[in-house]
């Protein structure tokens, strides 16, 4: 059984107006359990909308989304969030600035469970957070009481990653989670992403603008253009991909309109 399936999913923006955009155009996709899928494509290709549709932030106009055999097309965000972790591009979106590191982690630990009047941050919880933070090597394990808003973007994305995976999510959605980070920090956060995904065998969709990352990480690669998946490589075919090959694919897809597409690609 596939972990995630999209069946002819279509999503319009500004439907019925002259500015109508078909952000997703009858997208079909089957993602197997444990797949780590890198998604690339030019701006406006529909990558983000794809992830938002799975997360529940953009309800498809047509089609069906099935997660672990369950139709979640119209399920509210908070309900499906029990098993789906998502990290956005902006660190401000995935962490709560005015709460401390330990408070954010405590909130994340309760993902999908009833929140009652039990103590939010417990001593046992602190020990768990320290144990989870120590191997990352940013020294955050000693700063549990620090407000997240005072941390750097990289530290915040690191915590967002931990928050998305700390409580048994089975699907991880990464919406350009490295885009706002400097190259060195991006590398550290990417390595941590790879480690957490492997350790917890998470099914993962990762949007990236970095083709090298897309080639290097994961066992499958999707290229999107104009709301459709135009290239899908897995296993050995994926492993054999090179940056020039991907660039050629882009050219082919955009039929010479590459300048208009404003493709932001890091070779």
């Amino acid at each position, binding site marked *: 059984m596939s972990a995630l399936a999209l069946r002819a999913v279509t999503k319009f923006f500004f439907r019925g107006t002259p500015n109508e955009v078909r952000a997703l155009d009858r997208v079909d996709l089957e993602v197997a359990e444990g797949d780590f899928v890198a998604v690339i494509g030019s701006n406006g290709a529909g990558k983000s909308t794809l992830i938002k549709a799975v997360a529940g932030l953009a309800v498809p106009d047509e089609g069906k989304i099935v997660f672990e055999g369950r139709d979640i097309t119209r399920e509210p965000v908070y*309900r499906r969030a029990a098993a789906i972790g998502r990290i956005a591009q902006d660190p401000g979106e995935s962490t*709560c600035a005015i709460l401390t590191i330990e408070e954010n982690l405590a909130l994340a630990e309760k993902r999908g469970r009833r929140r009652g*009047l039990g103590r939010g941050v417990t001593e046992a919880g602190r020990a768990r957070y320290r144990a989870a933070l120590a191997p990352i090597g940013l020294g955050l394990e000693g700063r549990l009481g620090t407000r997240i808003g005072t941390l750097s973007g990289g530290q915040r994305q690191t915590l967002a990653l931990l928050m998305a995976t700390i409580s048994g999510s089975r699907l991880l959605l990464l919406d350009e989670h490295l885009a706002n980070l400097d190259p060195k920090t991006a590398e550290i956060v990417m390595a941590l992403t790879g480690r957490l995904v492997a350790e917890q065998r998470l099914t993962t969709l990762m949007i990236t603008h970095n083709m090298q990352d897309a080639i290097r990480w994961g066992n499958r690669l999707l290229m999107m253009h104009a709301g459709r998946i135009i290239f899908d490589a897995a296993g050995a075919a994926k492993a054999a991909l090179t940056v020039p090959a991907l660039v050629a694919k882009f050219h082919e897809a955009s039929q010479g309109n590459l300048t208009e597409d404003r493709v932001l690609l890091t070779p």
Partner: protein
Amino acid sequence: MAQIQALALNMFEQGFLFAFLGLGVLITFRFFRFPDLTAEGSYPLGGAVVAALLVKGVDPFAATLAAMLAGSVAGVITALIHTKLRINNIIAGIIVMTALYTVNLRVMEKANTPLLDTPTVFGDVVAALNGLGLDLPDNRLTTIPIAFVMLAAASVTLVWFFRTDLGLAVRATGQNEAMILSLGVDIDKTKMVGLALSNGFIALSGALVAQNHGFADIGMGIGILVAGAAAVLIGEAIFGDRTVGWWVFAAIVGIVIYQLLVAAALRVGLSANDLKLITAVLLLSALAIPRFRVRIFR
């Protein structure tokens, strides 16, 4: 000297009773980051409910609790209008505030209900203590410690609540809806909890003030949100932005200072008619002063 003493006693008495309002406004104005105008209706609702029940001979504690619950219901209605009908939260508050004006008149059946002959929670506590062999008068010297104990209990409860799983989720809801939603929290529910708590405290304040002043009046809520916000901001200007415990403490200090400033303004010859203008100026100052980074303790 006697004048200063009277001023100080007035400050603590009124300050501690109004402080419940400060706690309520803190939740919406600071934690949820929007001015909840429901307060303008839930504050007099607290007064109206307690007055109507006291006049009917209901026990003051039960009447005060009922007033608090009525305020919570008002908060829940605002939350439902905002979340289920997707109406802007400020507009939702205005709608409920407007509706409550009529509700308050219906509850009291008139615009002003005197409570001079009815028992009050303060009188009952004094009587209970005197029953234990003490000999206390029922005046502001006893009202101040009684109000203080109630306020301390409310503050401890509030701080405790905001450290629970649910409380953390409520706080995060006001700060980052996208994030808390993606952590599996039904924000419609957390908003309801926050607004119920806020307006419960605000109605409790109205109920206590009505018993202390000896009447409930349909107009007692006018400008109350601005007063509460001014107090919260005064506290914030002094103590800055720290933990929930500090926020609660700052709101209480802010209210007490606000009461002192109001009393001082009356002493220097301004009339009660000038109070709303004074309140507006106080709010403006409290908003503007921190921009100049004046922090007394920091």
